[in-house]
């Protein structure tokens, strides 16, 4: 167990406007909107914030932009940018900063207008002389090749992979903020427009605007706030590559490293977790992460998700918000993954709230399965 287990808690969470936001909104507008909503959620104010952690693909020096916009001068700031898992990494860094006495209350924020400005503008690719000649469609082609390899090595079927999208849609139908709520079947997923074989557009995350913020603070301060604290019990981080051609094994992600570190630091096991929030940029992600986190053996993830096992009413509650596949995906979705995991602890998830939630796991993914960061949250009883 880690000595910083539970030294900080998520106390406030908020989404910014999501989906298709008002014209000419900026990513920083959305961060600020999320910030004041998250502060209101917990009952703290901007003057309480002495640490700011932020990442965005549309803002190269996001901490500068956000601090200026908010008119704050925090003691600690961090713009770690490892893609969609950045915010899980921020939590680790916030825990360390709080433990070192550098700050007490940290804001983590994100904003994106990728639906408004287009994905190519929102996250332009760096030139890459070893990949550009082949014109891969990134990120879908990278994840599609991971799926193809998983199907080849383990006999995973297209239908099994599609079950992930179907489960996400069923959860999304319970979330009033979801972007897509029409009924979706395995046949619908398979019959949708092909993007990068074997993936159709329904295997791919949404392209929406959106963002939000999280406020975390010390256990002492967390006690008297409006929401129940979601204590950070353990985190783990891993980077295995940047380019998909450099990924050591397309069917095993860095989650096999980050997950065990997080479980060890938190002093809990996979079976103890009540709700999982796994970054579903693509359908295959959920299968890979369930395997790498230890919910089934490598190669058995396809069979594991069959028959609605991770859908509402199934054995394991995964992506109760509806996920990046059906709820919202503003480019670097990890912050919203964390928000759902915290809210299931707080008991504020409405129709999709699970009963008796003590422990949740938020798992972030960045790049092309490149960065993997795991966070385990718990309520007061788990301290």
């Amino acid at each position, binding site marked *: 167990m880690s000595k910083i287990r539970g030294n900080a808690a998520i106390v406030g969470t908020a989404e910014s406007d999501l989906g298709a936001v008002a014209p000419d909104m900026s990513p920083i507008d959305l961060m600020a909107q999320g910030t004041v909503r998250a502060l209101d959620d917990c009952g703290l104010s901007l003057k309480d914030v002495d640490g700011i952690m932020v990442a965005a693909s549309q803002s190269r020096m996001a901490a500068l932009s956000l601090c200026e916009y908010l008119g704050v001068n925090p003691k600690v700031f961090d713009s770690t940018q490892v893609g969609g898992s950045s915010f899980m990494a921020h939590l680790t860094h916030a825990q360390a900063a709080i433990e070192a006495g550098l700050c007490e209350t940290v804001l983590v924020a994100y904003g994106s207008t990728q639906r408004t400005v287009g994905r190519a503008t929102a996250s332009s690719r760096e030139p890459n*002389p*070893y*990949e550009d*000649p*082949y*014109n*891969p*469609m990134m990120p879908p*082609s990278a994840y*599609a*090749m*991971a799926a*193809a*390899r998983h199907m*080849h090595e383990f006999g995973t079927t297209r239908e099994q992979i599609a079950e992930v999208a179907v489960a996400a849609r069923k959860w999304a139908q319970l979330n009033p903020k979801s972007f897509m709520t029409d009924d979706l079947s395995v046949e619908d997923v398979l019959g949708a*427009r*092909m*993007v*990068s*074989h*074997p*993936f159709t557009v329904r295997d791919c995350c949404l392209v929406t605007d959106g963002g939000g913020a999280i406020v975390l603070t010390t256990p002492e301060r967390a006690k008297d706030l409006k929401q129940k604290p979601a204590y950070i019990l353990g985190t783990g981080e891993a980077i295995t590559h940047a*380019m*998909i*051609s*450099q990924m050591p094994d*397309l069917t095993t992600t860095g989650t096999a490293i980050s997950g065990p570190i997080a479980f060890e630091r938190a002093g809990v096991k996979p079976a103890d977790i009540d709700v999982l929030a796994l970054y579903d940029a693509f359908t295959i992600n959920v299968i890979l992460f369930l395997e790498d986190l230890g919910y089934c053996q490598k190669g058995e993830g396809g069979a594991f998700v069959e028959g609605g096992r991770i859908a509402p009413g199934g054995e394991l509650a995964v992506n109760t918000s509806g996920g990046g596949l059906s709820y919202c995906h503003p480019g670097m979705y990890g912050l919203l993954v964390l928000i759902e995991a915290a809210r299931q602890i707080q008991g504020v998830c409405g129709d999709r709230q699970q009963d008796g939630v003590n422990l949740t796991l938020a798992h972030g993914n960045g790049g092309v399965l490149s960065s993997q960061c795991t966070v385990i949250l718990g309520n007061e009883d788990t301290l």
Partner: protein
Amino acid sequence: MSEPAEKSPLAIFREHCDRGDLAYQVSGGKAFFYPRLTAPGTGSTDIDWKVSEGLGTVYSTTTLFPRGADPYDVSLIDLDEGFRMMSRVEDIDPLEVKIGMRVKVRMIPGRDDEAPYPVFDLAEGA
């Protein structure tokens, strides 16, 4: 301290491509690609350039379906010398490219004034 680099790894790679050769690097007995100034994992600058025989196996593959254009292949190729690269298998229908197929490299001219680059064709029996 290592000497100043007279040429970038990319420039040396492209000189090989101009000659029709697929270049890779070896350090401490381990082959790697893309070309670098330092060996991954060790930081060693004791690196040899080698020319691949050009034979490999498809490690994974996808067919892209751009709107309003023809589908095309993107694959990851495991070269027999022990390194992996992204490329394209060219001489068959992209949906017919399968994991495990044997392939052989061919240099093709780059677009506009860009350098030649490696693609792969089927190499049955190789």
